[in-house]
């Protein structure tokens, strides 16, 4: 492992050095540029070079990468106009022989009059040209010119927009982000038709040159957060960004905390809502999950649907989720502490029935609980990874092994099965998958504490978790906002969800102080006022 890291950093270093050595400027001689490109792209079957001689004497080189650039566009917008110029009878009248040698005007001519693609820019940097080629743009280099034309012919490769997989909702928009950066941009833009929506694209990754976009709504967002975020993004030195999760690990606060401090979402509506609350979205090309920062704890028990359900229902559901979260976290620990320490806290008939069930179990409650929880986690992991056709087999074996055979063999008690089942179901109620990890993992230390200290240990562990949560920051924002520090207007959309017309302010901490108003006041629906005549 260490050795690998060493070699990686060495390659990173050498690439940096190489870049510095070579001159970045294009040469006026086409051949030299051509040779340099040929040399750099040697052994690349999908790089296409095409030479034309236009106006009898000016040599032009077209270069693009097959597949990632749109061939239709390249053909219609670049190749066809250039081929026309190779025939003398099609010369434009304003083009005179005296201008022949002024290749800069050839460049301007091509850019403004000949090529029929909108997004054309010029660049004199060799590095930039290569970068552009690799994201699917076409490059036109003109002999004698120190500048080249960069034509936007990128192809949008991606699957169609589908429904969200991990953040399912019954009501509300059903669009999820896809892997394509541009589609994702357009999904956000379609919901935020404002010039204040700013989208910046960075290139991260020494080798892979992955595109990472930052989106925010100017005026609402706290500029400090954007600045901090850009700083953290620019610091990243890696060979390639495979998914937004990679970025998350580089930019998050408290890197070893198991609680997520950067939220990942695949829902377009969630992302838009977050942008309007003054958060920053990080869109990574080839990743369907958009990062939202900063994020606080309560973001993870809210579902997108909360905002489309009736407010009372949404509030109750949030409480339900919080209860489920606690069940998933501490129920096995409570079971252990009740069965091994606090027998007096269980109602008499229940204790007797648990005692009867535990009679034939040879293990202490801790071992019993660990066996069952481990079996469940194994089954869950198996269910995730295995091919779909084998799923049924696992579920049958799981149901039989856990539900039936383990009890009948006296390995575990039926009460424990109930506890595990309840824990499992409760853990699926948590609407954010990333918080689920934290709950799943923390359950085990709590069980250990319960077996050693009883209920005292459970409370101790719970306190430790709370203290940890209270100490967490996400881009400087306290993680337990709006509970700690408490904020009355923030509480309107935390555990409770007030109606939209009452949610007057944006959460205070994310944004500019003067842009707090979200909803104009006094919009509560009322019956029309009767006028007496």
């Amino acid at each position, binding site marked *: 492992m260490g050795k690998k890291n060493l070699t990686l950093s060495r390659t990173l270093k050498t690439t940096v050095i190489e870049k510095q050595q070579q001159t970045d400027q294009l040469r006026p001689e086409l051949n030299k540029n051509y040779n340099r490109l040929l040399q750099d792209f040697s052994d690349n079957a999908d790089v296409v070079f095409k030479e034309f001689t236009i106006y009898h004497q000016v040599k032009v080189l077209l270069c693009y990468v097959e597949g990632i650039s749109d061939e239709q566009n390249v053909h219609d917008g670049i190749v066809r106009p250039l081929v026309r110029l190779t025939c003398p009878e099609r010369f434009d009248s304003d083009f005179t022989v005296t201008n022949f040698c002024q290749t800069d005007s050839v460049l301007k001519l091509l850019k403004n009059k000949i090529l029929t693609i909108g997004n054309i820019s010029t660049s004199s940097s060799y590095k930039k040209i290569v970068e552009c080629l690799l994201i699917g743009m076409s490059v036109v280099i003109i002999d004698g010119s120190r500048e080249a034309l960069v034509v936007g012919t990128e192809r949008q490769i991606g699957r169609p927009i589908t429904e969200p997989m991990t953040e399912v909702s019954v009501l509300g928009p059903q669009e999820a982000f896809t892997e394509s950066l541009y589609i994702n941009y357009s999904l956000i833009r379609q919901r935020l038709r404002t010039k204040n929506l700013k989208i910046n694209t960075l290139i991260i990754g020494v080798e892979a040159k992955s595109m990472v976009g930052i989106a925010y709504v100017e005026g609402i967002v706290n500029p400090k957060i954007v600045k901090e975020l850009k700083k953290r993004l620019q610091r990243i030195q890696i060979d390639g960004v495979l998914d937004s999760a990679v970025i998350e690990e580089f930019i998050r606060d408290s890197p070893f905390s198991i609680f997520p401090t950067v939220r990942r979402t695949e829902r377009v509506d969630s992302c838009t809502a977050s942008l309007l609350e003054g958060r920053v979205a990080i869109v990574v090309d080839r990743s369907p999950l958009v990062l939202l920062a900063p994020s606080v704890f309560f973001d993870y028990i809210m579902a997108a649907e909360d905002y489309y359900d009736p407010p009372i229902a949404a509030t109750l559901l949030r409480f339900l989720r919080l209860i489920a979260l606690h069940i998933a976290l501490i129920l096995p620990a409570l079971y252990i502490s009740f*069965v*091994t*320490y606090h*027998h*007096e806290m269980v109602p*008499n*008939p229940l*204790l*007797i*029935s*648990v*005692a*009867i*069930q*535990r*009679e*034939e*179990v040879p293990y*202490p*409650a801790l071992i019993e609980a660990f066996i069952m929880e481990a079996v469940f986690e194994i089954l869950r992991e198996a269910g995730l990874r295995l091919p779909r056709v084998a799923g049924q087999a696992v579920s049958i074996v799981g149901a039989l092994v856990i539900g*039936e055979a383990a*009890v*009948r063999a*006296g390995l575990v008690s*039926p009460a424990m099965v109930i506890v595990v089942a309840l824990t499992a179901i409760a853990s699926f109620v948590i609407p954010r998958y990333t918080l689920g990890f934290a709950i799943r993992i923390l359950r085990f230390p709590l069980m*250990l*504490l319960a*077996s*050693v*200290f*009883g209920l005292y*240990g459970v409370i101790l562990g719970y306190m430790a978790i709370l203290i940890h949560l209270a100490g967490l920051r996400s881009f400087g924002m306290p993680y337990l906002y709006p509970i700690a520090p408490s904020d009355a207007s923030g509480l309107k959309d935390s555990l409770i969800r007030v109606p939209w017309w009452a949610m007057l302010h944006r959460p205070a901490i994310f944004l500019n102080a003067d842009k707090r108003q979200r909803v104009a006041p006094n919009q509560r629906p009322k019956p029309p006022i009767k006028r007496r005549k």
Partner: protein
Amino acid sequence: MRKTMYLTIVLLLSSFLNGCWDRQELNQLSIVTAAAIDKVDEEYMLTTSIIRPVAMTATGGDGGTSTATGDGVWIALSYGSTIHEAEIELNRRASRTAYWGQNRIIVIGEEVAREGVHQVIDMLTRYPELRLNTWILVARGLASDIVVSVPQLEKSASAELTGLITRQEGWAHGQKTALFQILRNSNSPAKEPLITAVTTAEIHPANLEHEGQQPTPSKGVEVYGCAVLKEGKLVGWLDKEETLGAHWIIGDIERRAIFIDGPDGKPISIQLLDGESQFVADLTVEPHKITIFIETEGNIIENQGNREIETTESFQWLGKEVEREIQRELNLAIEKSRAYQSDFFGFGRTIYRQDPSAWRQLEAEWSDYLAEKLVVETVVTVTLRRAGMNRQFINP
């Protein structure tokens, strides 16, 4: 970072050093649900009713548990010169440690109670596992008989007794008393506790007769009334009627039935709801006078006679009759209080509350004062409201 990590690891590991000091797995415990304390030949006899989970498990076809086989309760007897010794003795014959945290009932035998309930209470309140809301009963005769009695409706005698005390209290058959209430009484001036007295009874199963079998009565439990204590010692009993009278004065009656003779001499049942009482002490007169105001209201629930009683006049007449009947019960109870010189109504407390200095003068000779001098007056107000669901007299 590294420092905190090491610190955390060390802290976490240290948690295993104590070796789970209080850990008691359920299958290493014997759960005591009821206990009886008797005195036999100058020695305490402790009868414990212990749950036997083994008898209740049956790994049958469905893989679950059923409570079908065997006796679910083990009755263990042990002896000792102190109660704790008897409890320790128990461990010589039990494979599991006795666990008292779920104990609901402690029955004190007559013999022990006459010597002093407080000797028992002392041990019970010192013992950390026992709950303070354990119900205390006094048995007429051997307490052991109560614990070994056969439960009729519940799984165990403990559950049966708990139900008898808690759910039937509204009918004023006994007096629900928990350990903490006795403790509280012992610390407050001039109030003796009343404790439910239970006795064994033969309970006849009714449904066996038609099968031509001789019905074998099983030994059940019945509430007798109340045990009267004086300075922590059992001095006597209140029987059924006296207990009813006592409850009017205590004022915790939820429902009662009273049976009086109607205008035509035929019995009428009247249901009374919510008896409330109020003590007023008059300390200006000598001897002091305590007036007890009792208010209740009721419905006619049964009319054996053939005369219409759904009239205002007969309601008033019936009300007076009920008042007289209640007066009779009250006097029975008050007489018992005087006879036993036990202030279980808390007359002394009323005086204390009204004028602590007056109480201090009386305190030394209070028993005699209560028995001979104190004047107790009762004012009963009964309001009959309804004639049951049927408003009309059924004319034969």
